[in-house]
């Protein structure tokens, strides 16, 4: 059955700079904003833009992502024709192979796309937080007789060297592309959102696959090759909230953006809802001594303590005398009596013991992974158990599933880590 446009969502990224948060799940599956997973934004964009055929390319730790997406019901993507399809790497003939890059991932699924023989294809990154109407971008693509359209957003010049930068004419025609340039000539950064004429893209994917020296990457290989051949390529300017929540700090900040009085990123817009599987839980309850200020709180929570400047996911239990500040508490975690949590991320189903204090002391980067935990945010992994009375510093990492026996001492100073089955110094 022919479709005018279909979408491929790249959801295989590990997101290694999110540390323990992506230890057993891919970056698009990371929890975000009090009830969502990051991929919900791209998926909701698809359905809100009228794209109802979506292939999701997974590779790294797909279990949670697969069960989250299921048959696509929450997004109305359970369709007789089209709908959502999870595309994981598979065996072909004798040999199987992993997706070797973003372009190779799409190359390996040419058959899936051809089944719908679309004239256009949207290639989307599944690990960004944003709301975008792809149908407007498609109209821009058609209006300009483009063969490829790349969505761009203005970033501060100081940060431009971290992105793929498009140099384009006033009307938007791209004449040069630079990947992470030292001296950027423009501040139009690629958002990882592309629309291609499918026949044109297919030709380049096949060509690229034959090159042994290629990274098989859209930004590094496909876009430059098309540009070199003088294809009609256009930059579609997007203005609005768009965040690559790729680091612990960016992730934390972006969640905190949601609690400001009038957030830049509005989740309460009835005309553009963000969909996700809803937990089967009662409305949340704030106890007689509880207090919640400048926070968002999801269903099924029981709050008997004080919560300020925080994002609380479904089913969290905050006991009496607890103070939670500037933190993210993920689904079903339990915070024991009189505990104190500051500037921390507590993973799903983690248990914080009575009287524990988390996020205390000086800002010393983590010793094992200084490039991941360096912004003063302490991260407690999924299902970890922090003992009663423990004191954890800043930039501390507690491993997924770490138990009381993994704590060598009740005092974990800033910059240290608690590893599962780890040896004490």
């Amino acid at each position, binding site marked *: 059955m022919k479709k005018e446009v279909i979408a491929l969502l790249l959801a295989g990224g590990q997101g290694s700079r999110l540390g323990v948060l992506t230890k057993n799940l891919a970056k698009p599956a990371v929890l975000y*904003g*009090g*009830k969502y997973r990051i991929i919900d934004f791209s998926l909701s964009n698809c359905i809100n833009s009228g794209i109802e055929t979506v292939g999701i390319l997974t590779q790294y730790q797909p279990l949670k992502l697969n069960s989250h997406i299921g048959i696509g019901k*929450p997004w109305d993507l359970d369709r007789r024709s089209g709908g959502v399809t999870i595309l994981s790497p598979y065996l072909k003939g004798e040999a199987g192979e992993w997706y070797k890059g973003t372009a190779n991932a799409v190359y390996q699924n040419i058959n899936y796309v051809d089944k719908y023989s679309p004239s256009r294809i949207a290639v989307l990154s599944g690990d960004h937080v944003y709301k975008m109407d792809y149908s407007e971008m498609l109209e821009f693509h058609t209006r300009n007789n483009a063969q490829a359209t790349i969505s761009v957003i203005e970033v501060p010049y100081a940060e431009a060297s971290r992105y793929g930068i498009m140099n384009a004419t006033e009307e938007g025609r791209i004449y040069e592309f630079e990947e992470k340039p030292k001296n950027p000539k423009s501040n139009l950064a690629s958002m990882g959102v592309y629309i291609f004429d499918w026949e044109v893209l297919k030709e380049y994917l096949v060509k690229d696959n034959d090159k042994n020296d290629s990274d098989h990457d859209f930004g590094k290989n496909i876009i430059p090759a098309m540009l070199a051949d003088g294809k009609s390529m256009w930059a579609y300017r997007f203005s609005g909230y768009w965040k690559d929540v790729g680091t612990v700090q960016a992730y934390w900040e972006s969640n905190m953006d949601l*609690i400001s*009085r009038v957030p830049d990123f509005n*989740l*309460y817009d009835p005309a553009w*809802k*963000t*969909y*996700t599987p*809803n937990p*089967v*839980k*009662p*409305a*949340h*309850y*704030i*106890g*007689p*001594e*509880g*207090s*919640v*200020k*400048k*926070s*968002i*709180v*999801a*269903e099924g929570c*029981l709050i008997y303590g004080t919560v300020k400047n925080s994002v*609380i996911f479904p089913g969290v239990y905050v006991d009496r005398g607890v103070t939670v500040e500037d933190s993210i508490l993920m689904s079903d975690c339990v915070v024991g009596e009189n505990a104190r949590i500051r500037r921390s991320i507590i993973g799903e189903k983690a248990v914080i013991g009575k009287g524990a204090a988390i996020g205390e002391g000086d800002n010393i980067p983590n010793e094992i992974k200084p490039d991941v935990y360096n912004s003063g945010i302490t991260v407690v992994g999924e299902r970890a158990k922090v003992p009663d009375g423990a004191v954890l510093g800043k930039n501390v990492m507690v491993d997924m599933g770490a138990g009381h026996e993994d704590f060598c001492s009740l005092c974990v100073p800033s910059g240290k880590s608690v590893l599962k089955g780890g040896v004490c110094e």
Partner: protein
Amino acid sequence: MKNMMGLIMTGGKNNRLKELSTIRSISAIPVGGKYRAIDFVLSSMVNSGITNVGVITQYSFRSLMDHLGSGKEWDLDRRYGGLYIFPPLLSEDGSGWYRGTADAMHSNLTYLKRSNEEYVLIAQGNCVYKMIFDEMLQYHFGKDADITIAYREMYDFQPDELSLMGQIEVDGEGRIRDFQEKPLHFFSRKGSMGVYIIGKKLLISLLEECEAHGDYDFVKDVIIKKLNTLRIYGYRFEGYWRNISTVQMYYRCNMEMLDPQVQYKLFREKGKVFTKVKDEAPAKYNDEAEVRNSIVADGCIIEGIVENSVLFRGVVVQKGAVVRNSIVMQGSVLEENASLHYSILDKNVTITRGKNLKGESNWPVIVGKNMVV
């Protein structure tokens, strides 16, 4: 439990709920921040493994049908069985409205006959409780009963509330010796919960007999008349149970949900309570929010004071607004400095800037759907 089907009666007309039931069936009345009354019995059935459920509706059933849909929220969108909704059949000979509970079931005999289950569980849609029906069915078998009726010691009900339900007397064996429907004079604390288990064949023959005599009511014309000829047993239920039959009971039931023990009994033990979901973002609290002892649903935005209250989805409490001891349904808005005491706001009500509403704990003020005060 594959051998038992469910039938939910959603009740006749009731003026004791005032404005709350003029636009909706009582079974569709919103409770506890995100549920409707029928969710509790429907979830209890599903949690007990019942997968074939008929819902018999009478008055104002549009909201109920909208809520239940295809039954997918309860996992009742099935190839076999699943959820059936039976509004009154307006056929050419004008049979029309159901004349009573027995008549309502008799009108849907085809459904009963076509189903494969041997036993039928009949229950009411306006009661808030959690029950595992397997245990009651085992009791039914153990007593070799013809009909088993669930009852409860209604120690926590007022005499005038008791007079709105069926009262029963059981002997040492558990057999029901007397049953009086809505008696004028109090005679027993044992109140019928309106939950019955009965063999399907027996039910069909009783309904046919009842119809042939020109009678319509399942309790008065079937159960009470057969007390001596059939083996009718009482099954004692010990747990939280409320029937939403008056404004006072509706208000009380919602307020009781603020009690963590009641919350535990209703939502955290004996399976989950399922309901239609609405894809709202989590509730948002701004700096000025002061919320204590309250239930708050998704999509609310709170900048005022909320105490001892139940807020449904998408309620907005603006700066300086005060909500105390009140129930505020979906989408209602309290503008700046408005205040609410002992009040019930139906859906999409707006209390404009600075306005005050005050009821009494035994007589809360009710504001009807879509009103602007």
